[in-house]
């Protein structure tokens, strides 16, 4: 699949006088599990609401599924959304939720939904209001997947789940992606939840996109250099993301490929996704954006002390 499942250009959303999201230019290719990561208030939910058509942009545009405007009939038809805290109608039974969703959509895979709820041990006649948080999240995910969407959008899907339920939930998301080719965009303020499944990362901070790209590429273009603290300043001109200084050793996250030369006296290590994300989030001025979405904050980031 050679299209962008979500594409934004100069996208912005203002609530009152505050920009919740601004100058967001992204091109998330289809066939990925894309993780939207950032601290609370970074604009994750705003970006997702714009993507699913719940909110209208204040600036710029967002298209989905290879060019459809967000919120258009084709977009609504092809995108399933599970909102934060997985709202369900408390007085409806699980079976009613399935029937409701079937009536509200052109496609609905009732046998799949029933079989999955059976597997999960969620009784069909149980009112949604009497399900546990984990069961409710699973019900919402089941209902969303049974719509057989091309894009599944999940806002903080695992926030209310215990670790085991998180694991199971993510396993199902991953299965949907690998077996059925559903593209997934999900958000979390805890990267650890997503690290295992995400192969595309969008880092949001203060309403702006700070880093975006395929996880593989991001990891391949960053290295951690460890060397004498006294020499750390020599790398000021290089694209350094973070300087962590221990007593005598400095840790520099640099944008460099595996084949770039390592200065004498320094050691290069590959970085983990979490290290990378944390470094960028601590460094609001730093940015790493891929090709077309490259914007003015791509200049080599400054060194901080």
């Amino acid at each position, binding site marked *: 699949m050679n299209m962008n499942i979500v594409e934004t250009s100069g996208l912005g959303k203002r609530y009152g006088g505050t920009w919740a999201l601004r100058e967001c230019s992204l091109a998330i290719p289809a066939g990925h599990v894309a993780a939207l990561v950032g601290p609370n208030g970074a604009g994750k939910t705003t970006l997702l609401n714009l993507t699913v*058509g*719940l909110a209208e942009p204040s600036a710029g545009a967002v298209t989905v599924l290879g060019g459809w405007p967000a919120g258009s009939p*084709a977009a*609504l038809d092809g*995108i399933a959304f599970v909102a934060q805290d997985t709202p369900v109608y*408390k007085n409806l039974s699980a079976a009613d939720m399935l029937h409701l*969703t079937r009536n509200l959509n052109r496609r609905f895979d009732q046998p799949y939904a029933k079989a999955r709820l059976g597997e999960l041990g969620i009784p069909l006649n149980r009112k949604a209001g009497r399900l546990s948080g984990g069961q409710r999240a699973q019900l919402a995910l089941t209902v969303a997947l049974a719509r*057989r969407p*091309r894009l599944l959008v999940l806002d903080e899907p695992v926030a209310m789940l215990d670790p085991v339920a998180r694991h199971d939930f993510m396993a199902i998301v991953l299965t949907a992606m690998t077996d*059925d080719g559903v593209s997934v965009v999900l958000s979390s303020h805890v990267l650890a939840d997503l690290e295992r499944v995400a192969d595309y990362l969008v880092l949001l901070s203060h309403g702006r996109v700070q880093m975006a790209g395929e996880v593989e590429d991001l990891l391949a273009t960053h290295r951690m250099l460890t060397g004498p603290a006294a020499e750390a300043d020599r790398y000021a001109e290089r694209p350094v993301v973070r300087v962590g200084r221990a007593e005598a050793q400095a840790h520099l996250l640099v944008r460099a490929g595996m084949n770039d030369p390592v200065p004498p006296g320094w050691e290069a290590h590959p970085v983990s996704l979490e290290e990378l994300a944390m470094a960028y989030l601590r460094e609001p001025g730093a940015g790493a954006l891929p090709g077309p979405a490259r914007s003015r904050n791509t200049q080599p980031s400054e060194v901080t002390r």
Partner: protein
Amino acid sequence: MTALTMPARPKHDAGLRPVPWRRMAWVTWRQHRAALGGVAVFLGAFAVYLWLTGLQMHHAYTADCHPASSVACTLNFTGRYATTGNVVSIFVQVVPALIGAFAGAPVLARELETGTFRYAWTQGIGRRRWTVAKLVLLAVAVAAAAAAFSALFSWYNQPFFAAGYVIPFSTRLFGLREVSFAAWTLAAFAIGALAGMLIRRVVPAIAATLAVYAGLALATALWLRQHYMAPLVTTKPNLPGSAWAVSQWYTKGGKFAFGAHGSGIANAVNQLCDNGNSGLSPGQCLSQHGYTVWTSYQPASRFWPFQWIEGGWLLALSVLLIAATVWLVRRRAA
């Protein structure tokens, strides 16, 4: 955990056929059957009561009210049932407000308050269809129930009209008759739906609906209704049939003298009529002194035109409010 795989997906076609409207019937029924059932039970129980007491009243009227001016009629019909009739009409007044508040206000307010609009408005049917279908179906249902109920209420009041105890134009009863009652219920529902969308919380939306409805009903009864058609004017002291007297005033020598109430008439009666002790009624005395009394009125034959005028503008208002609600749903940013 073993996850099931889904069957091969059909090709995503660009020329989408929208989700059919009729699917919303089940959705609306399933989500609002408690409210609709509540309305049905409430109106049904009220109707049974009206029917039972109405039968007794009709019997009493047929037995004793020929003619209606007889003592037997006064004792056994009006004397016995007039208070009940008044109390019942007060209760019926609040029915549209209750329907608007408890069936109309929560339709959108509950979705917004609990966050389920994020589910509802991202389904394939689209939020415009979802809102239009829900509001129209529910509005038609409550208006139809109200129309049926008010038909029974009109039958209940027939003996009172026949006995001349109240006129059909009575402020207390006009809004509770077939056309206007259904229209008031519809308007109350539309007010509730819009209030719910604007306020986004159930309880404040219910309170706002009650307040707005009460204000509108009061303003209509006190100031608006009498202007639906230009009133007729007469100098006869007695109005024809069960006409509705709108206002009265006096003239002398072709010029306006004073209204039927206020200090003008009080001074004149004081000066000219020995403060009312002349043995004549103020009206008779004033006419002896050359004053003419004018009465503007709406004749009884205008009852149904007035019903349709009231029904018409309330229907237009309801359509406007529902359209505004749909527009707000479409543009509301999450």
